Structures are given as structure tokens and as C-alpha cells.
């Protein structure tokens, strides 16, 4: 029983990373209809920058995390403006030509960013310097909670809750959804679609970058391929959770993490990913709008 709860906690912490990454990934997918293959690279780069901020510049941990998040956001804006902006002439929404074009340019950026990240890390798997991050372990009876797991879970709650609040309760959130729906309709209210798109890209990159930093610390692995694992599972979390619902992504991410850990503990570690992806496929087939997906409107 003790093991069960310990693994449940581990699964939640792992899933929180998926959920967090997925929130960033889903933000761009929901508002701009872009399936962004480069999203994983934002996570890698944010982690690399944060790590070097500590290692080379000696910045304190919280500042380094902020610098990393900033880097993730800036890379995302760069990719958006160079890779996606020229394709927006195809018109708004999930037009197939635009979607395919954006997918290809994002693949191009994925290749470039990951390769450049390889140079940045000297092709090694590095880690945050031991002792540079909170490493305390909280004990409650037989249960233990390492500080990084607590931070990750808190991160999901804060970022997920915050993004949900921004999305549903603020003017900026309304503008993001409006631009995603139809840039002209948003423009009628004076919204500068381009600014909103850039801000959305920045938020998306920053959030996925934050997930990358947390993942880099808690797995002691900062490398060019860090983002890839997050990418596949984060993508599953977005689809299962319903791509336009942040709560759904968060919950689906947690569920995926728990499923994965329990699969490995009680069933078979080699079929573990199979379960996760079969779940993803099942959701695509049966509930393409995900757990919490609204009936919604389809664009004309």
C-alpha cells in the first residue's frame, strides 16, 4: 500500500511534467491550429539555458529558471515569426495547406534547434550542478516527497490554474481565443492579431520551457533530446484532455504519468508506452475533442 501511494505520487510528478509541457503545446494548437514539431526543442533549450545560467553565470536558482523560461519563449517567438508567419497568408484556422506547411517548417526548426542544442551541450547529457537546486526531501510518516516533485506539482497547479484563469477571465485570454477563431473578428475589436500571436507563442514556449527545466532537473538529464520524450507524451495529454481545455490537458497529463508508472510497476514496462499511445488513439477515435472538449463550433 505504501508502495502504491509512493508510485502514485511519482506518477503524478511525472504526469505533471507532461501536463505542463502539454499546456504550452496545446496553447498553440488550440489558438493557431499548428501542430508544432519544434515544441520539444523549446523545452531542451530552456533547460540548457537555465543550466548554463547557473553553471557559467552563477545565477541563483529562481533567476536561472526565469532566464530559461524567457529563452524558451524567445525561441518560440523566433520559430513562429520565421517559420509560421509567412504561412498565415493561407488564411485562419486549420486549413490543410497551412497546417501542412506549418508542420513542415516546424520539422525544419526541430532539426535545426535540436542539432544546435547538441552543439550547446557538446553532445553530452549534462545536468544541473548538484546542489544548485532544492534537493530537500519532505517526510510524512513512511511517505516522502522530494522538493523537485513538490515544485513540479505546484508548477502544474499554478501554471495550469493561471493559464485557465487568463484564458477564461482576462481580456488577453479572450483576445487569444478570438484571434484563434478569426483574426479579422478580433481585429474588429481593435486587437492586433500579430501581437497576440507573438504573445501566445511566447507563453507557449515559456510554459513548455518551464516543463523542460523541471524535467532536466528532476531526471538529471539536460541534453538535446530532452524535449523529445516530453513532446510525445505532452502531445498525448493535449489530445486526451481536449486541445482547447487547459484543465483537461493538466488532468490528462497527470493520468498519463500515473498510468505509465503503474504499468511499469504492476504490468510490463515494455508495453508501457503502448498503453499510453493506445489510449491516445482511442481518444482520437471515440472522443476527438478529448475528455473535456466542448461541443464547440467548427469554423466555416
Amino acid at each position, binding site marked *: 500500500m505504501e508502495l502504491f501511494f509512493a508510485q502514485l505520487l511519482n506518477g503524478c510528478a511525472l504526469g505533471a511534467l507532461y501536463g505542463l509541457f502539454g499546456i504550452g503545446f496545446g496553447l498553440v494548437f488550440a489558438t493557431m491550429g499548428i501542430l508544432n514539431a519544434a515544441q520539444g526543442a523549446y523545452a531542451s533549450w530552456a533547460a540548457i539555458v537555465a543550466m548554463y545560467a547557473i553553471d557559467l553565470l552563477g545565477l541563483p536558482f529562481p533567476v536561472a529558471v526565469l532566464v530559461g523560461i524567457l529563452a524558451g519563449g524567445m525561441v518560440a517567438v523566433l520559430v513562429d515569426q520565421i517559420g509560421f508567419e509567412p*504561412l498565415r497568408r493561407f488564411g485562419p484556422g486549420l486549413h*490543410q495547406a497551412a497546417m501542412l506547411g506549418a508542420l513542415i517548417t516546424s520539422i*525544419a526548426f526541430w532539426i535545426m534547434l535540436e542539432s*544546435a542544442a547538441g552543439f550547446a551541450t557538446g553532445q553530452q547529457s549534462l545536468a544541473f550542478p548538484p546542489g544548485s537546486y532544492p534537493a530537500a526531501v519532505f517526510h510524512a510518516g513512511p511517505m516522502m516527497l522530494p522538493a523537485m516533485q513538490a515544485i513540479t506539482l505546484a508548477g502544474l497547479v499554478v501554471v495550469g490554474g493561471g493559464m485557465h484563469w487568463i484564458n477564461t477571465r482576462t481580456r488577453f485570454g479572450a483576445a487569444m481565443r478570438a484571434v484563434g477563431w478569426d483574426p479579422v473578428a478580433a481585429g474588429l475589436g481593435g486587437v492586433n492579431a500579430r501581437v497576440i500571436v507573438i504573445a501566445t507563442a511566447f507563453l507557449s514556449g515559456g510554459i513548455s520551457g518551464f516543463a523542460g527545466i523541471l524535467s532536466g532537473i528532476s531526471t538529471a538529464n539536460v541534453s538535446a533530446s530532452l524535449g523529445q520524450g516530453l513532446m510525445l507524451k505532452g502531445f498525448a495529454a493535449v489530445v486526451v484532455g481536449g486541445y482547447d481545455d487547459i484543465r483537461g490537458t493538466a488532468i490528462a497529463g497527470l493520468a498519463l504519468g500515473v498510468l505509465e508508472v503503474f504499468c511499469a510497476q504492476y504490468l510490463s514496462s515494455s508495453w508501457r508506452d503502448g498503453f499510453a499511445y493506445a489510449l491516445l488513439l482511442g481518444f482520437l477515435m471515440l472522443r*476527438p475533442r478529448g475528455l473535456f472538449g466542448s461541443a464547440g463550433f467548427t469554423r466555416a
Partner: protein
Amino acid sequence: MMDIVEDLWAAYASTLGFAMVNAFFALATYATLSAGILSFGAVTFGAAGGFLGAQMVLHSTVPLPLIFLAAGLAGAVVSLLVAMIFLRLESHWMALASLALVLITRVVVLNTPDLTGGVNGLSIPQPLPLEWLAGLLVVTVGAFYALDRSWYGIAARAVREDTSVATCMGIDPRRIQLIAMGISGFVGGLGGVMMALMLQFVSPDTFFIHVAFTMIAGVVLGGSHHWFGPVLGAAVFTALPTVMQAFIPEMQDIGNGAALLLIMIFLPRGLLDPRAMRLRRARK
């Protein structure tokens, strides 16, 4: 003089071979794309063809042509099964579903060692004669050319460009897309067995996401509106690393990415674009 030719051939025959193998995958992707389906499924169909072909080479005395046929059919069967389940999804969901399928394919391949050799893969002590590969590619490209000119090709273009207009012309988009998936499966299965024989080896990594992305990139690069575009794109995409290596060996991946990006931005419809050719003709 002959020596130089021979040396060049020895050095680049395998590059040519891989370009032709990749052309099969690109054509398989083009087959669905030209009917309006963005699908990464050709990886899975390739796996079906590749592992079946490998097992047939290892455990039977079936001649190569029949192995090719069997691999193609295996790909087609898998693709039709997939199509029956996936085709009711909207286009972008279909793309996501096919991506999930690629991920699942890997897990299945890893966990069925009796069929696929599992993580170790299968070694195939059977070289692929390049003339076989070239011959089959010519036949396949010929079939794509014939299809492109036929009622099917024209109907598929209509479905891709404007499904609603096509369906009002009496074209059943589901039927056209089912055919497209079948062709994609057959050609993907062929590509799979070619890849297996070319590598003389298959493993779970032989058919994974990077293949999916390279072939989509190849199609888009070459031109996804022209039957020869995928072949051209696959050739460029296979040769690019070799060329890049000569100039900027450390940066070859960055070079590849940049080349892809530039083409997408400045030639979004690819190197071969029949529409652009016709526009040029119209302007004259």
C-alpha cells in the same frame, strides 16, 4: 577514366539506392496526400512489408519478386484496415491518429520478438540488386503517372483541393481516399522491404518517426502536386546530408533544416509544381 566512373559508382551507389528506397516511402505518402489525407501511416505499412519480407527471406526460398509482392500486399492490407478505422476522422485528426499509429507500431515491433526480432531486429543475408530496385521504382513511378492522368488522379485532385465540390460532382471522397490508402499501403510495404534489403537489417528504429518526417519533408520539398515530385524530393533529401558533409560536416543537420525551411517559405508548393508551370505558360 573508367576507374573514376567506377569509383564514383562505388561511392554513391548506396546513396542512389537509399534515394530510391526513400522514393518509395515518399510516393506512399504522396498517394494519400494527393487525395487530401496527411498521414504518417506509410511508416507502419513499411514496417509490415519490411518485417514480412525479412522473415520470408530468412525462412523461405520464395523468389524475390514474390517477396516484393507479398510485402506490398501486407502493407496494403494493413493500410486498408487502418483506413476503415481512421477515415471518418477529419483531416488534421487523421494526421494525429496516424502519428499515434507510428508510435504504437514501434511498441508492437519491440514486443513481438518472434515476428520482428524485437530490439535486436533481423539481419538479412540477402543483398538487394540495385537493378531490381531501379526497375521496380520505374514501374511504380509509371503507375503513378498513369494514375495521375486517369479518372482516379483527377478525382483525387478534386477531393484534395475542394472536397465539397468533388462530392457534388458525384465523387465519393471516402472511396477515393480508401483507394489512396490502399495504394499508399502497397507502395509503403514495397518501400519497407526495399529498405530492409538495402540495410540487410530491420529493427524497430528502421521504421520510426524520423522516417515519417523525412518522407513528408521529401514530398513537400519535391512537390506534393506532381507525380514525380516525391521521387525528386526523396533524392534531394537523401543526397543533402552527403553534400552537406562535404562542405560543413559539423553543421549538416542545421544545413538540412535550413534548406527545408527556405524551400517551404519561398517555394511552398515544392520544386515541381504543375500549377506554377501552367501559370508560367499562361503568362507567356
